[in-house]
């Protein structure tokens, strides 16, 4: 882990005894109390803690929901209704879990956008970033399979549409795509067998996520946190101990996040969902418009923007997989967009494109909607494949301050703080 001296002093005899055998308290103390945190990080750095919280909430509520849920095509919808109506506080658990998925993605998108803005993927944080993309992919798989479980109309048809995407492989290897789809379904159509296997995987994957999150945090604590200046910690005055400084900041951020979360859980539980999912799944009746949950809309728009099915599927998957290469696609030596005026402009164009794609993904794929989706899809890929490498070379970045302390206090303040003065 990070190279800082441990100041952990076990006081009790049991504490000393344990420290010599399994220094777990020392590890926790070193990583979550002493850990040097850049003094200038803003509230966007609280999203990591929020995400850990979201994962915990989803696992805790999910386990209890699993005690009441029945993963068969005949009873899934009824069991969710029984949870809403008859299980003690079942409505609350179910609302927290459903709204929780949305807020998990909300926090993840802000977290990813922060990384892109402040160049948090640059050396030495490439592995940290890649682990993040892996977590994101696992989250998407988990959320997709979780959305199938209520077995409403949208659940059923979303599963049908998305699993059918694999049949596009038939265009390359005839028959292979169909085989993969049948293997995913466990039969020749989306059925009870599909639901049961998705349920099993939906229960499994969160623990895989927790494992990768462990690696993500390990990598983070090994290289240290990035910060708005993108500068490394160079002196003790650049950093503050994680506890109490980052802890109290993160806990305050969490309380605000949970406040908004609560608003949705108690007063808008269905706002982020689709009314059609309160209609029991019916293989014989296709809803007029099949739309995924909001957090998949940008990718859905990319999929539908491309007229060829196979190419659409490739574009959709590569839009996410490309993120893995961002550390090498960005050629700039300066990390933070704060000192990169040109990149900053393109960054906001990119965010705007993703938002626009989200809006277009909710619209029917026809007329002007398709054309705009093509424009923004084009920019999405241009940004990652062309803008990132070229702007890094062409742009003359502004000169970042000499140190984090200087960025916070100005040149004059440096001596003031390093002598231990209180300001």
């Amino acid at each position: 882990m990070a190279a800082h001296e441990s100041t952990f002093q076990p006081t009790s005899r049991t504490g000393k005894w344990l420290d010599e055998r399994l220094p777990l308290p020392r590890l926790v103390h070193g990583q979550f109390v002493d850990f040097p945190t850049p003094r200038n990080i803003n509230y966007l750095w609280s999203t990591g803690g929020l995400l850990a919280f979201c994962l915990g909430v989803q696992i805790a509520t999910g386990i209890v929901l699993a005690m009441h849920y029945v993963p068969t095509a005949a009873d899934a919808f009824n069991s969710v209704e029984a949870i809403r109506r008859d299980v003690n506080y079942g409505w609350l658990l179910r609302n927290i879990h459903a709204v929780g998925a949305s807020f998990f993605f909300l926090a993840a998108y802000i977290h990813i956008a922060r990384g892109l803005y402040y160049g948090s993927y640059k050396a030495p944080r490439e592995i940290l970033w890649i682990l993040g993309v892996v977590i994101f992919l696992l989250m998407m798989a988990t959320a997709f399979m979780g959305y199938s479980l209520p077995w409403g109309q949208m659940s059923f048809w979303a599963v049908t549409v998305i699993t059918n995407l694999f049949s596009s492989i038939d265009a390359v290897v005839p028959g292979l795509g169909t085989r993969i789809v049948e293997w995913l379904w466990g039969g020749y159509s989306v059925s009870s067998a599909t639901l049961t296997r998705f349920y099993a995987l939906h229960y499994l994957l969160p623990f895989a996520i927790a494992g990768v999150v462990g690696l993500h945090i390990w990598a983070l604590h090994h290289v240290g946190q990035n910060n708005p200046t993108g500068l490394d910690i160079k002196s003790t005055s650049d950093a503050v101990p994680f506890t109490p400084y980052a802890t109290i900041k993160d806990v305050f951020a969490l309380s605000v996040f949970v406040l908004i979360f609560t608003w949705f859980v108690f007063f808008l539980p269905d706002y982020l969902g689709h009314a059609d999912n309160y209609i029991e799944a019916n293989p014989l009746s296709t809803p007029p418009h099949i739309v995924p949950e909001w957090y998949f809309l940008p990718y859905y728009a990319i999929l539908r923007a491309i007229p060829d099915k196979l190419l659409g599927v490739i574009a959709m998957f590569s839009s996410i997989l490309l993120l893995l290469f961002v550390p090498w696609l960005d050629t700039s030596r300066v990390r933070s967009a704060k000192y990169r005026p040109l990149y900053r402009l393109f960054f906001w164009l990119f965010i705007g494109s993703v938002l626009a794609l989200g809006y277009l993904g909710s619209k029917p794929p026809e007329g002007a909607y398709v054309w705009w989706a093509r424009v923004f899809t084009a920019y999405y890929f241009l940004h990652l494949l062309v803008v990132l490498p070229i702007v890094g070379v062409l742009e003359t970045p502004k000169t970042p301050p000499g140190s984090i302390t200087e960025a916070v206090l100005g040149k004059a303040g440096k001596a003031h703080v390093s002598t231990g003065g209180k300001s």
Partner: protein
Amino acid sequence: MRATGGTRAGVAALMLAAAVGVAAGAAPAARAAENGHVEIPRQKWSFSGLLGKFDQAQLQRGFKVYVEACARCHGIKRIAFRNLVQPGGPGFSEAQIKSLAETYKVDAAPNEQGKVVKRAAILSDLFPPPFKNDNEARSAQASGALPPDLSLIARARSVESDAPFYRVPLNMLRDIFTGYQEGGADYVYAFLEGFKPPPDKVTVPKNMNYNEAFPKPHFTGMPNPFVAGDGLIKYDDGTPGTVDNYVRDVVAFLSWAADPKLEERKRIGLLVLGYLLITAILLYFAKRRIWSKVH
């Protein structure tokens, strides 16, 4: 830190706004563009908003309307007789519902000869469906359409919007801040009030009915249940028996049926919000105090 605090907060706010924007853009407006739609006006409901509660008397009237005008074709299979007694609902007395249940017949457990005979329903029984199966339900309709179960209808419908894209974020913020969850109720209300004579050039197919709230081409298999007009159903509490009252009351009843824990949800929600608000304020001052040592 002070100098750049503004920009930083700005970036954070923008990102959050952007993310919330995408978040909410999803659900609405999916069906609108293809089918076209009529503007569905928002109604005033006693159960909307932060402090919303069901009006017990209205739920009782709504239940009467359901039984007399809807129940012949539409079931409420997820509602048990006991639900009509439970808090947060119509609040009938146990004795009232016990005697009501006795008028319904349900399948008993197989007897010693293995025959399934009927018995009177008890509080724990679900409302028996009006038809044995979907095929029987279809064949009993002139249009041949399946009358859906109404237990969830007020949640399973929504109001679609065709607002231009630049209005969408504002609309979403308005709905989020006002806690608008009554799209389903508004739609069902508009549908039940929407049986109007068709416009001149429109020919309604045989056994179909024109309804202006129903998605284009506005033909539904369901006939107007209140075609007899005012006075069709006699209210026991002196409320005027008008069609508008029938519709409002039955929609309130169906909204409760789709969300019987609404009152408990809002009551606990207020407590949680208050608790979190105080916690957040205290944490904010704790944070400022701790960080004042480094600033």
